[in-house]
């Protein structure tokens, strides 16, 4: 187990390193000049050159990358004298458009995205798995057909359309307060306000994602139900409830873990469409604003890397958990 863990951990670190290098390279060779973008109205070559030096862009790309990585672990400063500013470690760089350390921006946005992700994740797992079980148990009956209709609708509806329709329906019913709309409150200081902000986006994301989980659970439960050991359990005289809970579901839901882990990680990286429509100041909106308003490269770089890292790390966690849960997966 330890050897497996060490191997997977090394691979994860390598992949994260590769992703950060490629993202850095992609953004370094874009035809955008951050030095020109930040220089404002009174622009001349001297100012641009000074800006370039101040932003640390006057050195080669590998050196820039080296400084970026170093900034993750030790404090980093830009510029000299009066125009000096620094970001404490772990630093993802400095946003010159918003005049703030990127880490600070991410720190502000992450709780929003996390709240959105955790709530909808719980909701969609509950919905998806229970619909799937009901559909599998009532195969061919109306419950099954209703679940199939739900799956087709859920898979077909793009999430931004669902979000839009839900939002409009809710505001028609007077459920949306335009002043409080998308307002971030901590669940620790104002739990009711937190629920008010998030319940609609939770429902939207949950409806969208639970469809594929319903399909998956249904087919897995049906498949597992025809296994010999389920027949044995039934022959032993166990009640249907116990068979379902202790035998069928255990085998049928284990493969869901991989899917759920990745989906959760993707969501933690920022739900761009849901956050945009519900006006939530999370990671997704942070990055889309960085692209659409001023092409704020350090922010785009940081959110992209963060999202990729979350997926890779979650992959590792899922693999380890899976090896732990499923005795059939041999590690060594």
């Amino acid at each position, binding site marked *: 187990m330890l050897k497996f863990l060490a191997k997977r951990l090394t691979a994860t670190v390598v992949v994260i390193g590769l992703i950060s290098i490629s993202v850095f390279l992609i953004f370094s060779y874009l035809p955008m000049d951050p030095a020109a973008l930040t220089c404002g109205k009174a622009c001349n070559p001297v100012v641009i050159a000074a800006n370039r030096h101040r932003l640390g862009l006057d050195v080669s790309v590998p050196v820039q990358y080296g400084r970026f990585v170093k900034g993750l672990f030790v404090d980093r400063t830009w510029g000299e004298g009066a125009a000096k500013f620094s970001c404490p470690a772990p630093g993802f760089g400095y946003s010159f458009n918003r005049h703030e350390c990127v880490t600070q921006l991410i720190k502000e946005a992450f709780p929003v995205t996390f709240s959105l992700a955790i709530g909808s994740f719980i909701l969609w797992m509950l919905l998806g798995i229970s619909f799937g079980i009901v559909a599998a148990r009532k195969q061919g009956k109306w419950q099954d057909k209703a679940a199939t209709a739900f799956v087709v609708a859920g898979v077909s509806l793009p999430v931004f359309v669902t979000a839009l329709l839900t939002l409009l329906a809710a505001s028609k019913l007077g459920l949306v307060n335009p002043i409080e709309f998308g307002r971030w409150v901590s669940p620790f200081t104002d739990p009711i306000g937190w629920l008010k902000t998030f319940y609609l986006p939770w429902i939207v994301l949950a409806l969208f994602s639970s469809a594929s989980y319903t399909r998956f659970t249904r087919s897995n439960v049906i498949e597992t139900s025809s296994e010999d050991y389920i027949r044995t359990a039934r022959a032993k005289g166990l009640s249907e409830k116990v068979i379902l809970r202790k035998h069928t579901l255990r085998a049928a839901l284990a493969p869901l873990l991989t899917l759920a882990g990745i989906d959760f990680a993707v969501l933690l990286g920022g739900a761009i469409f849901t956050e945009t429509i519900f006006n939530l100041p999370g990671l997704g909106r942070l*990055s889309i604003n960085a692209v659409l308003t001023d*092409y704020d490269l350090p922010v785009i770089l940081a959110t992209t890397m963060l999202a990729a890292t979350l997926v890779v790390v979650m992959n590792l966690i899922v693999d380890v958990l899976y090896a732990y849960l499923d005795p059939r997966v041999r590690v060594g």
Partner: protein
Amino acid sequence: MSQLAATGEELLIDAPVIQRTQRQIAWGRFKRNKVGVLAGCVALFFVALAILAPLITRLLGVNPTDTYPKALDPYAMPIGKFGGISMAHPLGVEPGAGRDLLSLMLYGSRLSFSIGALASVVTIGAGLLIGVTVGYFRGWIDAVMGRIIDFLLSFPSTFLIIALSLPMTQRIEAMGIARDNNARVIVLVIVFSFFGWPYWARLFRSQTFSLRERDFVMAAQALGASSRRIVTKELLPNLWPTVIVFLSLSLPGFLGAEAAFSFLGVGVQAPASDFGLVLSDSINFWRNDPTYLIIPTVYLLVIVLALNLLGDAIRDALDPKASPS
């Protein structure tokens, strides 16, 4: 008892042997699936509308770039109920600028279908090529490609598509390949394909793995067939059903994605129009003109739903495990 046996024998003797090809079996199965046939007809109808968009708009005497200020009241809202639906404007008029909504939908779906179809063909094509190659040759090529596929799949594609669409469009314009919306369409197809193929390559790889162990491939190898012959004559013909299923399932996904990105403002831009652009505009008017929101929503949903149901029906019809009745 003997009666039954007798009739059984009689049936065996009298019934003429009907030989049916795989295609006929699949078609027969598809025809019996009412939902699938209906979805197919609906999908065909909308594809035809998109292809015939110039003809239809000319017949109706409307143009997607023309404005119809006479159909708007002084507050720039459509005159008449349901967003100004009338004989001249069957789906109503756009509030604000006053363009004809039907022509916007027709040309919008034309654009969406083009992007979706191109991206689907490129994605599935690349996935098939790479999947079959690594699945057949295995060894180091498979190990290397497997790493690359894992790597690309863990990339946050949505973020990168948003971040790269603007600079890539500028670069394509600077290179003089295409301008404005043509450049944006090319960029969308490129980024969709670039991040899309690994998923399909993985599926084709596993399909090839199981195919290459089958007896007919082994027989071909024993007869001394070249790798090229085995791939093109033995493996590919057996993968066509999968290709058709994947194509029909990926098209609606791309239609939704195209709408979503242009909704965010990183897809095509005015004066062109598509579902995403109309939907993002309709948010400003939904209180006074809900029809303007509902029509593009329903139009998009019906297309995506029909294509998804059609894809499912095709998959069921081509499923070798199903009974050949």
